[in-house]
């Protein structure tokens, strides 16, 4: 992993000093340092820094192609970075396979929902517990008592998660047969079933009705109250972001152009120009 400086030139990052002492006491769960990712000639992420604090909801916003999802894919191990580090709970995630990262405690959802469509909702959620299980081939074939206990544990936990996201009634439906909104919640339930410390949501509210996004926001807030969890999310919908985020980072063209408390970001001219401007055009 190398770090090339010439990429950092001309990056103006406006940081909110206020925040540091607001949550100075909070410990950092995820830290991204000078992250760089290229695809051929295109530099998708350009020496990007980020610190995600324990027990908060942090968001990354930015126009399309700003490199938000790429950051996620590097964090969750689907891509390997071309430069920089990703440090989770003090450990470097470099060279980790996605499933190892999940085992370490980062769970994610996808922008375009990726469910196991021909399996029942319950099975989908149960598969989340896979990395917490240990039964091998033999104990599964011969149904050892340990394996039976484990299966029960997995099953009950999955049922619990389904209740939590309010999909209990669909437990035996195939995932492909339930409504879009429910599929989003199911994917979140699946991610939660891995008992993560950090939940990474890629545009959770995209394609949801306002009503559904409202529920989603409420759900995430309650989640944070109930469980010792941290959430990092990419969002397009400003209302959602401003509604639930404790801390917002703005990306454009692979760089961080600003970060701070939602209200400050909201009035940050740089952001308005780089992001909201585009947003309005999109709405035309």
């Amino acid at each position, binding site marked *: 992993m190398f770090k090339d400086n010439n990429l950092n030139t001309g990056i103006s990052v406006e940081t909110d000093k206020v925040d540091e002492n607001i949550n100075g006491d909070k410990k950092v769960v995820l830290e991204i340092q000078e992250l760089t990712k290229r*695809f051929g000639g295109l530099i998708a992420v350009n020496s990007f820094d980020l610190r995600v604090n324990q027990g908060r909801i942090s968001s990354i916003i930015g126009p399309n192609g700003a490199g938000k*999802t790429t950051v996620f*894919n590097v964090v969750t191990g*689907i891509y390997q970075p071309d430069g920089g580090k990703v440090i989770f709970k003090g450990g470097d995630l470099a060279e980790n396979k996605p499933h190892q990262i999940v085992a370490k405690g980062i769970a994610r959802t*996808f922008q375009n929902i990726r469910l196991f469509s021909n399996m029942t909702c319950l099975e989908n959620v149960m598969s989340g517990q896979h990395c917490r299980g240990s039964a091998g081939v033999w104990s599964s074939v011969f149904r050892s008592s340990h394996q039976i206990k484990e299966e029960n544990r997995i099953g009950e936990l999955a049922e619990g998660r389904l209740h939590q996201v309010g999909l209990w009634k669909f437990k035996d439906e195939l995932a492909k047969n339930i409504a879009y909104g429910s599929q989003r919640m199911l994917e979140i339930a699946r991610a939660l079933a891995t008992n993560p410390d950090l939940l990474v949501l890629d545009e959770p509210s995209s394609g949801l009705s306002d009503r559904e996004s409202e529920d989603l926001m409420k759900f995430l807030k309650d989640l944070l109250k109930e469980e010792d969890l941290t959430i990092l999310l990419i969002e397009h919908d400003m209302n959602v972001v401003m509604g639930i985020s404790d801390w917002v980072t703005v990306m454009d063209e692979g760089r961080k152009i600003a970060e701070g408390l939602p209200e400050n970001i909201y009035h940050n001219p740089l952001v308005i120009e780089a992001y909201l401007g585009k947003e309005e055009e999109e709405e035309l």
Partner: protein
Amino acid sequence: MRVFLEQLLNGLTIGSFYALIALGYSMVFGVMKLINFAHGDLFALGSYLGFTILVLGTAYITSYLGLWGGMIAAIIIAAICLAVVGTLVERIAYRKIYPAGRLPLVVSALGVSIFLQNSIMVVWGPRPQAYTANVVPSAYLQIGEVRITLLQIIILVLSFLLMSILYYIIQKTTFGAAIRASALDRDTAALMGININTIIFFIFALGPALGGTAGVMVGMYYRKISFIMGWNYGLKAFTATILGGIGNIPGAMIGGLLLGVLEMLGSGYISTAYKDVFVFIVLILVLIFRPRGLLGEKVAEKV
């Protein structure tokens, strides 16, 4: 040196057969994402059709057309018949199954393959047939020590001609562009107003037609044809397709020629008995190091 040149020549000849068949696989796969297992047997069918045409037309050929004329006539007729059969196969056995996804298609293709193979056996009998001598030109050139039969030259020229025509169609014409577009993304292509059905019709007519041409040539070249030959040639040709990068027209051509040469040189300089083993090992190595074949370019998985 002489031996090397001869092997190279044979390699190219066989290679051009493989290439012609491979084109069929490649086009169909490119657009349909279907491994058309029936293609090899369509090739065999072409070979038998050519045989029958030549037998029936012997008198006519020897008196009017002459051997070359006869050969061309046989090829053209066989190609046309094969085009018809190919499109029929698509209509009857594949079209209804597209919505069901790819695996049922594979089974259906295998079914068609078994069907064709056994219909050949029923119609022409289980014994190997042989192109009779008097309709196959046997003249040859002596260049230095190397002896080239005119037939070989014709085969090479003809297949090269066909391939370049196809290449031109695919790469230079708008229709070709349409084919390439639908190979990349069928739905989007359809949205862009490309008539997918025309494309499908075209590839299922042209692929088998080329296969049939190869079939007649093989019959002419080796004389002996058998109803099971479809499998062997089909498998080799499909290997060639993958080797070159599946769904990639120039890839199929290069893959075919390369495979033929590899086979000949492999058996010439490594081991006759293990030549196919050698071929497959090369294939596997290529795939391990270039998972998308020689000319196929890597596409990053979009998440």
